[in-house]
């Protein structure tokens, strides 16, 4: 299951950070997200891949640790999406799909004229959509 999702702005400022666990390991999850940011920077500055995968928004597995896996996604506007999952066998296509839905939820949230660019996302609809996507992901993996 997805235990944490994060949206990080272009100056590495947190725009949205939400964990879905009951235990008090939120700090640990935030730490993983923080570490993933460094990996993203590294990937972007030293691109190893060539061809079609070059400059793709989806960055793939960033930070595998013992219990968690962190996946990343970087948009054209240098906004990063990160999620941390406890699932060990995750399909790439599922992750891509998740990020796509997550991205469109984000775009809809920032298109709100009352949203201030660079500030935290306070939209309730965005939170609900994110939660629903995470839940959907969970049921997909469960199949």
């Amino acid at each position, binding site marked *: 299951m997805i235990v944490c999702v994060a949206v990080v702005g272009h100056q590495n400022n947190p725009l949205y950070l939400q964990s879905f666990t009951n235990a008090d390991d939120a700090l640990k999850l935030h730490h993983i997200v923080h570490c993933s940011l460094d990996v993203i920077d590294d990937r972007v500055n030293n691109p190893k891949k060539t061809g079609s995968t070059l400059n793709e928004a989806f960055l793939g597995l960033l930070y595998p640790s013992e219990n968690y896996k962190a996946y990343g996604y970087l948009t054209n506007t240098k906004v990063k999406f990160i999620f941390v999952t406890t699932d060990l066998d995750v399909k790439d296509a599922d992750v891509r799909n998740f990020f796509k839905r997550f991205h469109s939820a984000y775009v809809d949230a920032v*298109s709100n004229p009352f949203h201030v660019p660079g500030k935290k996302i306070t939209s309730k609809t965005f939170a609900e959509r994110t939660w629903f996507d995470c839940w959907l992901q969970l049921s997909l993996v469960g199949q």
Partner: protein
Amino acid sequence: MVSTYCNRFYSSKPELAARRIEAIGYQVGHQLSERYTMERPRFSDHLEAIKFICKDFWSELFKKQIDNLKTNHRGTFVLQDNRFRWLTRMSVEPTSGNTDASQADSSTSAADNKALPATSMHLYFPCGIIRGALTNLGIPCAVSADMSNLPACSFVIRIKA
């Protein structure tokens, strides 16, 4: 919208109205660029981002692409639109509210002088859109517009180092 800002809110201060209209355009461009770049890979350099503005972004906004793109390869780009949609209906006649006899007698050059500031007001909004979109793509820049022969107009983009 432009006329409301020019005539009602800031009728005495046209430069303030221009700044305000530009700021609204900036916000619109900022948000639209996020939406329209969703499906594409990241841009590797400035030229690619500008090309995106010329082609996809412009056709989403105005149902046509930019007609001509020039650059000096040192951070200045000139985008020329030969038939800018918002200026095609723009009249170069004097404004109808002006029925003064002495004004009516004056030559066409005076009429042009009256219409030009009103027309140039309408270009602050697209300038703001371009600036907002490019800034959101990580390219801080300054955009100015030039309209020497209507309805063609050109936007000059200067990228800040």
